């Protein structure tokens, strides 16, 4: 398959050879090798399933895409075995500051890791192509994953038991039969179009300029956001540090602009100099204009075709909820489809992916839409409220939490999920069913590392027996952090919780019994 000529190349992979003739059969075909598709392949490959990953371009693309990866995504990378490689390459940060006009002090600031003593930072900045590089290299080491770049899916024919795919390369066409197809083929998803699925939502009339520049700077590793700064009057701006002396500058430009002229260096560079000072030395990495939309498909599950990532939902970039939302999808889907493939859960269990991933997508869309409405007020009244918040925030602490420059991505809870076992005891805080476990040091390791990607009972002295194949981890091994763990989980001696493979709590008890734990496990596997 030829190279879409307008996409810049980060790393050439090359067109994979076509398979030998005859009908090929695979368990899982993943379409699209962006970060979400690659991570999905790694998830199934590491669980021992045979995966075919098809990608239309024969390269990893450069250019400016996702850069902000949430703590939750870093936790997922850890479970995929690539956490350290990604964190070593990126720039960690926790603090965001919001400035208004020419005021030197922030009107508001926030900390993305309010609960300390966790392995990973609140956020990591790293360009998407580095993440793809690391995921690609990890996937390359597994014989269970067959990656074919330069292979374009041209037709998708689902039936009751699986999916026939037609695939084209520059040389040939062939057919593959897959038990399951996962469409990670991005916002313009060809699979979505081939199935004729609607992608409902809202378009925002605003243009933003991304200027990724290379410069030596001593700016701290923090997210800085401006409302109405002197260097971009009446608009907003954002600055992020990336690795290798690259900085992401983001300028709101408004709707009626000449988009081609706006990315011309002679128009970008005065903006950069106005922001960073007239004498700043920098070189251009990437200039582009983006607009955005908030959309999602009605269902993520269409028989044996499953949607994940941008093919299923799109959000505005404020809040870093795009790529991180995609990782939430694959994390939710991975263990569920794994159980189905092992015959330990019924195929209908995937309905809970549809249910929980849509809760996540809707919360991401709701948050990013609200941020956008604050950043780009749609009426005079809306602007008056926005400016009133900023004015009050300078003098009155109550107004500061109203300042919305993006509510940054964190793990989303499913309190109403049908696979939770509702609390029957009294709890004050802690981690409720349907919420993600909070990391904490335990012994000489981190709790999330210990949990891994299987069902685990975390117990405060409860001896079990736990159901077959489920390990009990006793918080007693924590020694000096025992009280910290008890506070974070609201545990009392004798208590326990059942934790899902994606590290969400499924159930908890003050006084568990083997029968209660076993029932909760059945429910969490879609068997109750």
């Amino acid at each position, binding site marked *: 398959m030829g190279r879409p000529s307008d996409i810049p190349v980060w790393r050439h992979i090359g067109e994979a050879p076509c398979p030998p003739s005859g009908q090929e059969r695979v368990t899982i075909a993943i379409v699209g090798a962006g970060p979400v598709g690659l991570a999905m392949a790694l998830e199934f490959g590491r669980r021992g399933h045979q995966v075919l990953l098809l990608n239309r371009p024969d390269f990893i693309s450069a250019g400016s895409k996702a850069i902000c990866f949430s703590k939750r995504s870093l936790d997922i990378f850890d479970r995929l075995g690539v956490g350290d490689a990604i964190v070593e390459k990126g720039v960690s940060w926790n603090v965001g500051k919001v400035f208004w006009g020419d005021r030197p002090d922030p009107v508001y600031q926030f900390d993305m890791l309010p609960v300390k003593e966790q392995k990973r930072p609140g956020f990591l900045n790293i360009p998407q192509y580095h993440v793809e590089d690391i995921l690609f290299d990890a996937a390359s080491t597994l014989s269970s994953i067959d990656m074919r770049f330069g292979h374009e899916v041209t037709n998708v024919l689902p039936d009751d038991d699986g999916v026939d795919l037609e695939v084209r390369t520059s040389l040939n066409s062939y057919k593959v039969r897959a038990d399951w197809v996962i469409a990670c083929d991005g916002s313009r998803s060809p699979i979505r179009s081939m199935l004729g699925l609607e992608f409902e939502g809202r378009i925002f009339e605003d243009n933003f300029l991304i200027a990724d520049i290379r410069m030596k700077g001593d700016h701290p590793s923090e997210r800085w956001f401006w409302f109405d700064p002197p260097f971009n009057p009446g608009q907003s701006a954002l600055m992020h540090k990336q690795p290798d002396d690259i900085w992401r500058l983001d300028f709101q430009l408004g709707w009626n602009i000449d988009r081609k002229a706006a990315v011309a260096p002679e128009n970008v560079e005065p903006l950069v100099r106005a922001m960073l000072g007239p004498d700043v030395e920098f070189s251009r990495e990437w200039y582009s204009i983006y607009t955005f939309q908030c959309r999602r498909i009605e269902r993520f599950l269409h028989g044996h075709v499953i949607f994940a990532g941008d093919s299923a939902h799109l959000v505005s970039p404020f809040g870093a909820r795009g790529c991180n939302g995609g990782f939430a999808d694959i994390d939710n889907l991975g263990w569920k489809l794994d159980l189905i493939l092992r015959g330990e859960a019924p195929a209908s269990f995937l309905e809970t992916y549809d249910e929980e991933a849509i809760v996540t997508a809707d919360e991401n869309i709701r948050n990013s839409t609200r941020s956008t409405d604050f950043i780009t007020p749609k009426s005079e*009244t809306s602007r*008056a*409220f926005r*400016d*009133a*918040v900023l004015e*009050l925030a300078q003098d009155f602490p109550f*107004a500061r939490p109203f300042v919305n420059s993006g509510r940054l991505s964190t793990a989303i809870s499913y309190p109403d999920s049908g696979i939770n076992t509702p609390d029957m005891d009294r709890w004050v805080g802690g981690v409720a069913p349907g919420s993600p476990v909070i990391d904490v040091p335990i012994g000489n390791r981190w709790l999330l590392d210990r949990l891994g990607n299987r069902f685990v009972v975390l117990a405060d002295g409860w001896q079990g027996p736990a159901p077959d194949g489920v390990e009990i981890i006793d918080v007693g091994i924590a020694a000096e952090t025992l009280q910290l763990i008890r506070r974070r989980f609201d545990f009392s001696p004798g208590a326990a919780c059942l934790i899902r493979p994606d590290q969400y709590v499924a159930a908890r008890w003050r006084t568990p019994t083997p029968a209660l734990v076993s029932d909760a496990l059945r429910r969490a596997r879609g068997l109750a």
Partner: protein
Amino acid sequence: MNKLPVTPNLSPSSVDDVYHWLVNAHEGLSDAESMRFNARLILLLVNAIGDPQLIREAIHYAARTRKSET
């Protein structure tokens, strides 16, 4: 619903004062300044009420009054 007081909650002797303060605060302001003043005032009061359901109820009643006028 029906948590928001809609019967007199200020003493009869103070309502004229309060009304005067509200209107008087806008003296000399342009429409845009007035709009922003009102926004600041609403935000201060909303925080003082401190109960999202009460605020929602107030918004509901305010919207209903507007409808009956048009």
